[in-house]
């Protein structure tokens, strides 16, 4: 047994007072959870403390909360781990465990939020049921076995809202369809039994708050307690919309992506002087005869570019001159191109439920293999599958060690 202090953000609407902090001491084994701590408070000290909870085992998705600022499930966070996290955040190395209600949602009471008006409304936005064509067959639909395993990753979602709580895009744009609902959308888009794939993709690309409203911040991947990796599902929706279905979006997101990859393919690194013009006016033809939309877009982007220069994000004015493009040392430029080439040819999809071959211990020099760090950058995704085919990427080449800590700004992801 050990003593922990839980600092809980409380709100009791019927008192007429605003939210306030209250500290509780609990006495529990370190491997018990923050939820166990909250329940000890509720059962032994203060029955007015409310938190939704049921299974205690990260299955039901009730107890989404923020612990030390990180959106997660209270039942899945061990007290010892939470204490470590709290200590790390504190200058003197010791601090209470901070428990707050989820973000991006109105608070009803204490740790209970209104998920209906935020989370569930967005789920319903994506037409969340299967729409097959015609009558069902007499027996089952015959589908590739990998396809079912593939969508099982988004089926693993328990609708806890942790990703919604952590989503930075939603903080900026509350109308963003959001990580949970878009992961749900992929569950149908990736399902070969659904007949509305194109319509679903078109709908989500044309919505200014749809698939191109995500800014790749990785927060939802970090927050998700079930490894659904909502951002991955959003990127897959984009690839299916842009690459497979050739759908352009109202946010110019797809053209921006194409400009990005085109520059990388050609130069190895990003030449920012070309990015903006290429995003709006593609190729020589586009630049000679820019459409009115392109001119509008370019002019509209000027303030952003100026802000970039002023704040130092754009560090070298020389970089703005087309053609002046510094190279990386030691042939790294070529290396990046080969990574790009590999990604183009293989289209790897990350999926938790597919492990390729029996795991092999990686060779010591493998960590420096650019392919391994590029395609398998996420420590939590040791498994790879090549979409739409039976070919599985050789794990000895592409599987990183399972316990590699993910870096939030890992390079090599398709942007």
């Amino acid at each position, binding site marked *: 047994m050990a003593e922990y202090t839980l600092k809980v953000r409380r709100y009791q609407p*019927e008192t007429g007072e605003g939210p306030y902090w209250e500290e509780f001491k609990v006495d529990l084994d370190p491997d018990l959870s923050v939820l166990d701590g909250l329940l000890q408070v509720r059962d032994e000290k203060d*029955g007015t403390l409310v938190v939704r909870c049921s299974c205690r085992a*990260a299955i039901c998705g009730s107890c989404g909360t923020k612990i030390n600022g990180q959106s997660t499930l209270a039942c899945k966070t061990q007290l010892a781990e939470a204490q470590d996290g709290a200590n790390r955040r504190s200058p003197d190395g010791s601090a209470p465990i901070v428990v707050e209600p989820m973000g991006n949602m109105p608070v009803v009471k204490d740790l209970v939020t209104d998920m209906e008006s935020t989370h569930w409304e967005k789920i319903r936005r994506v037409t969340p049921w299967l729409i097959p064509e015609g009558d069902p067959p007499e027996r*089952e639909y015959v589908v590739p076995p990998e396809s*079912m395993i593939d969508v099982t990753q988004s089926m693993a979602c328990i609708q806890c809202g942790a990703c919604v709580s952590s989503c930075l895009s939603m903080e900026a744009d509350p109308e963003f369809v959001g990580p949970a609902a878009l992961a749900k959308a992929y569950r149908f888009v990736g399902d070969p039994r659904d007949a509305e794939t194109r319509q679903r993709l078109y709908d989500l690309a044309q919505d200014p708050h749809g698939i191109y409203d995500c800014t790749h911040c990785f927060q939802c991947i970090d927050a998700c307690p079930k490894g659904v990796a909502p951002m991955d599902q959003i990127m897959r929706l984009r690839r299916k919309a842009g690459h497979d279905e050739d759908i352009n979006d109202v946010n110019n997101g797809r053209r921006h992506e194409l400009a990005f990859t085109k520059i990388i393919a050609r130069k190895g690194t990003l030449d920012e002087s070309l990015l903006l013009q290429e995003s709006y006016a593609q190729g020589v033809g586009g630049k000679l005869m820019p459409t009115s939309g392109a001119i509008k877009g370019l002019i509209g982007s000027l303030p952003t570019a100026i802000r970039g220069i002023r704040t130092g994000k754009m560090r070298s004015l020389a970089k703005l001159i087309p053609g002046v493009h510094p190279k990386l040392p030691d042939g790294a430029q070529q290396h990046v191109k080969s990574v790009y080439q590999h990604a183009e040819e293989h289209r790897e999809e990350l999926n938790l439920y597919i492990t390729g071959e029996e795991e092999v211990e990686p060779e010591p020099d493998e960590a420096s293999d650019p392919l391994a760090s590029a395609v398998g950058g996420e420590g939590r995704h040791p498994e790879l599958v090549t979409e739409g085919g039976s070919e599985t990427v050789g794990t000895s080449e592409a599987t990183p060690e399972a316990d590699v800590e993910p870096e939030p700004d890992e390079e090599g992801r398709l942007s």
Partner: protein
Amino acid sequence: MAPKHDVLVIGAGLAGQRAALAAAEEGVSVGIVSKVHPVRSHSNAAQGGINAALQEGDSWESHAFDTVKGSDYLGDQDAIEIMCREAPEEILHLEHLGVTFHRNDEGRLGTRAFGGASQARTYYVADITGQAIMHVLYEQLMKFSAQISRYEEYFTTRLVLDDEGRCVGAVLRNVADGSMELYEAKNVILATGGNGQIWRPSTNALICTGDGIAMAYRVGAPLMDMEMIQYHPTTLAKKGFLITEGARGEGAHLLNAEGERFMERYAPNKMELASRDVVSRAEQTEINDGRGFDDGTVALDITVVPRKRIHEALREIVLVGRDFAGVDITREPIHIKPGNHYTMGGVKTDVNGATPIPGLYGAGELACLSVHGGNRLGANSLLDTLIFGRRAGKHAATRAKQVDGARPAEAALRDSEREVAELIGRDHDNGRRISVLRRELGETMDRFVAVFRDEDGIQTALDRVKKLQEELPSAYIDDQGTVFNQDVLGAIELGFMLDQAECTCVAALHRTESRGAQYRTDFPERNDDEWLKHIELSPNGDEPEVSYSPVTITQWQPAERTY
């Protein structure tokens, strides 16, 4: 105006959602009520899969026989036949709705092996089968929202009968604001699940307090087989979390502290895949005889399953091991023990879910037909919820077209409101906290009414339950508010749980034999001459009144049960 429906479903796990969808298909007005958001329901926790004889070379008779044998011949064979016959069609229906069932290499539905089954006939989605099915059914609820009204986070406090003894509605408390209302319904289908929270620890979620079982009992619907409580063979020692039987289905071994695969001595043919009651008793015997580990457990060794297969088929268990026991199950054995898991007994219903009270139905773990008898087979519970949820929904909808509605008496609402007001207003000086009583109940039941039982122990438990019942009216809560007052709900739930605990103790005392999950050390043999029958309990003043009903036998005569 108070809500009014042809069919009001209370409980929104698999049985409730399936019932609501089936009723809506008949074109009647449906409401579905749940004290939590429907996708939080405990059907989520069913990991391993769902049984059906759909493969070539399998037959519903074989599935039915395995179920009858698994039940230790206490299952009613007419109901079991229906369940097993209708299983294949139900699996296909779910597949058509969008459940992402595992496929074989040909892209057709694939199966895994499960305990007590003579064939690999368990269909599954990794080890999140219950979750996957329930979320797909919830998709359908959203799709049919014009026909089905959802009352999410509404707590039902009581059922309401009219003067003729028909069930005509229920009293609901809106958890969000504490308001209470009388809901009018031509039919009520109870689908509130089992009551595992009466035991501590339990694999069951905190919401599994058997509310519907107690509410039905209180209005006079008989309960049946209440002594039959399943202890699952593989639960985590401290927290009681479930490790799916799918692990053993995939080939995992059970080892005692000496490293011996002890099931060889108890079930030489089926080994780890014998019926759950058999495996749980074997484990408990090893532990009691000193061959377990110091923490009162034995070991489940999943490392014998190929790692690739573990990641693909048992991923949830990898997470449970890692997050809740600090064990990498792909590399080392994990300590487990038998733990409270499933309520075989419940509200007595017929094969259409009907109780003897007109207009009152039951389905799922709440109900007792009985298809599980003395012991439920793994992967038969999801099937039970779906088959009999559908049948209850359809039957209730049909009845709704034939009967007139009746406005339930306002007195029921006023009684419930008065009770809640009294509970909230209680002072703290005359009794103990509700949460303390609840804990005492759980520990008592787990100690005395578990894998091995005897008269002294059960009697001790019964005496303590009665004492807690006496204490209940003076026990107190803290929260006096209306918004999201979980305290008041906890107190009402404890009342429900105590009624059921009393019934379980009385039935366990009565059954002076060992059958299925009821193992009496003072009566260690099965006794078909006297006890091939169900025990029913009805409220009668202070004590449940005991009566008996015969087991329905169609084609399988009781025989010795070995695995």
